[in-house]
């Protein structure tokens, strides 16, 4: 094949890839693309090269992609990457403007503290801690948890901003109610122990000793979770029972994750607060069913156990800072 034909085939492959990403490809076009790829080995090779180059270039954006109703990370990444490169432009035309394109930073970027995390109490990665409240109640905070505490004359309120907690509610002479609230709703302890976990899209509540009353943030929907049971409140205020018993939802208090009917995504979600760095799991691998009990305090061990028992590959980068899990 001459250089000119190779260039032409490459341009065709690019045109097909543009078509494939249009969001409006018809079945007829899909079949035409399959026929074009099968027509000549050079076509298939060009397709693999072009689509592979684009995938590799965009792969770091995968964790930011908009999912369901949540596009905060996608908007933020878009905003960052659309910024003009002010300083580079100022010296463009100079000797080194575009020189070191493949330039790697070998050192960690020193980061200033984040003002948004000025909570009353918080825990770091892989840290669990008990906090005593003024009324004699106690909160056990899971790793990477932040709470605001307001024990007032008429009420006892804990705002769970991030992470999970188990509240051990002390009896109160003034019979002030005890509530844990999150962005999705409120859990009122009717008894002595309950677990609350907040995630981006929903909040999980488990009634460990006696019942818990749930109020969705829209103020309309309410439900009572009986002792030993768990429930979700989502961003729309819908309350659904969890199939997992309350004791399993609170297994993190002993540093364990217990899953009876879970997926790899659930395991990774539970490991993240216990691991410095970043775990990325491909959507196909995330759907794999997982059952068992896993230690949270030794994430390397848990990742290895998963790699040994599931059809996945676990790759570590930068000394384990970045972990990528894919189908084997």
């Amino acid at each position: 094949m001459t250089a000119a034909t190779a260039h032409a085939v490459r341009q065709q492959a690019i045109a097909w890839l543009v078509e494939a990403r249009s969001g409006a490809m018809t079945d007829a076009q899909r079949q035409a693309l399959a026929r074009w790829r099968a027509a000549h080995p050079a076509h298939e090779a060009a397709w693999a090269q072009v689509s592979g180059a684009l995938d590799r270039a965009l792969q770091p954006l995968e964790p930011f992609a908009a999912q369901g109703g949540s596009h905060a990370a996608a908007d933020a990444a878009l905003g960052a990457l659309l910024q003009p490169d002010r300083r580079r432009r100022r010296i463009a035309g100079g000797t080194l403007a575009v020189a070191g394109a493949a330039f790697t930073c070998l050192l960690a970027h020193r980061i200033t503290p984040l003002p948004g995390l000025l909570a009353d109490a918080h825990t770091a990665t892989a840290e669990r801690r008990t906090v005593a409240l003024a009324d004699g109640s106690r909160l056990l905070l899971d790793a990477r948890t932040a709470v605001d505490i307001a024990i007032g004359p008429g009420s006892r309120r804990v705002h769970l901003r991030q992470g999970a907690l188990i509240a051990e509610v002390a009896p109160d002479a003034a019979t002030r109610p005890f509530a844990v609230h999150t962005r999705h709703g409120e859990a009122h302890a009717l008894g002595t122990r309950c677990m609350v976990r907040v995630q981006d899209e929903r909040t999980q509540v488990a009634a460990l000793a006696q019942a818990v009353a749930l109020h969705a943030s829209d103020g309309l929907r309410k439900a009572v979770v009986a002792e030993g049971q768990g429930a979700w409140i989502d961003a729309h205020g819908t309350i659904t029972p969890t199939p997992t018993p309350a004791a399993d939802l609170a297994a993190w208090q002993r540093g364990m994750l217990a899953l009876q009917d879970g997926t790899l995504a659930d395991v990774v979600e539970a490991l993240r607060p216990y691991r410095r760095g970043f775990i990325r799991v491909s959507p196909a691998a995330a759907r794999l069913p997982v059952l068992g009990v896993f230690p949270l305090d030794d994430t390397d061990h848990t990742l290895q156990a998963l790699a040994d028992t599931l059809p996945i590959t676990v790759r570590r980068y930068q000394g384990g800072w970045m972990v990528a899990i894919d189908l084997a």
Partner: protein
Amino acid sequence: MPARPLTPPSIAVLYTDHHGWLLGWLRRKLGDTAHAQDLTHDTFVQLLAAPPLPALDNPRAYLATVAKRTLFAFWRRRDLEQAYLDVLAAQPRVHQPTEEERYAIVQALEAVDRVLRSLPATTRQVLLLNQLHGLPYREIGDKLGIAEITVRRHMARAIGACCALAEP
């Protein structure tokens, strides 16, 4: 037999003779000693990772050239991170990233920025709306006020740029 030096002698000499000068130069650019120390270190790490040094008439000019590259990368990382956090902070009820997550976020943004920064703003925007927000071309065209055929031309250009960078 004398112990073999860990670094090529020329870099060791550069370090001994000009480390203090480079630190001062970077401190003047940055107005901050801690960052200047980091970037001085980064600059020498760059030199160690690079091919052997050429014969240098003016070692300080060479050091300054490499240090400028380090400096631009540093400024760009900081701008990317700040812009990311600004957009995030403007949205209510969003999980704010932890320090570890921010590190990974900046690494990822920087990797993509290296590929995209040679492209015009509209081309970048078309590709990112398609990739990050999963928008079909018709919606991208509506959003940016350009024709769908123009959206396709920008996509083709962006894909071409990714291929060109992927080549050895």
